[in-house]
């Protein structure tokens, strides 16, 4: 697994699916430390519009663990701080809901 290694004093932010489409990249490096509560602001500054289009419907992981961004924002100064070398990832909704409601109808399964 060749996850990109961040330069000294930076962390890696990984993009997948719709996040990759929006940024046209698979990852970026951001300066660390950065409070998690400030992450979406930093990403929005770099990619205007991404918050509404991608981030608000996505989940977030830090070093492979899911974190609740809203909860971290509410914690203020006591919230999680992203450190240099951390691997953070934006996780858009996964591709493969099997059956789901759409305008009250059940769609056919997609791949199966």
């Amino acid at each position, binding site marked *: 697994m060749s996850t990109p290694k961040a330069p000294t004093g930076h962390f890696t932010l990984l993009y997948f699916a719709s996040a990759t489409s929006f940024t046209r990249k698979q990852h970026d490096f951001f300066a660390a430390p950065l409070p998690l509560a400030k992450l979406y602001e930093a990403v929005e500054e770099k990619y205007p519009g991404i918050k509404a289009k991608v981030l608000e419907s996505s989940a977030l992981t830090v070093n492979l663990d899911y974190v609740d961004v809203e909860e971290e924002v509410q914690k203020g100064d006591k919230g999680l701080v992203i450190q240099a070398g951390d691997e953070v*990832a934006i996780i858009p909704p996964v591709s493969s809901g099997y059956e789901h409601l759409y305008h009250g109808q059940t769609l056919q399964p997609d791949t199966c």
Partner: protein
Amino acid sequence: MAAEPSPVMCIEEENLFVQLTHDRLDIPSIMARVKSPKAGAVVLFAGTTRDSFADKPVVHLAYSAYAPLALRTMQSIARDVKGKHSLTAIAMVHRLGVCPVGEESILIAVSSPHRLAAWRAGEQALEECKERVEVWKLEEFGGSEGAVWRANRDGQAGARVEDTMGDVGGQR
């Protein structure tokens, strides 16, 4: 897809195997991983790329993954399903990269002493994989429609994709 050697993308523990691969999926080998003299039932699910989505022709699908996280989630699902249904063994493999129409994108094999537990476990394992595993699907419709990242969990039509095909395959 870069011509670099494929990284090892699997987790194996006793009677449990999960894998991501860019290769074609092999049904006999996944069956062999769960067969046992203790198991009177083997249930295999094969998810195959269909040729259409909502009446639009699909040329092929491509999958990308956050591989280390997807494997960890698959392991967690497999452990949970195996314990809950007292399975003899469970094996799950998901294909990444381009998956042509008619080829398998996911195989799930479970074995148990009796068939009812195996049926139920296979169903649960598939549902949870589709719900939770960090794998994303890109549908190539061909023509002006182009490629669409599918976030099916929302039941939405997805967003058009431009110039991102080179990214398919995800983190290597």
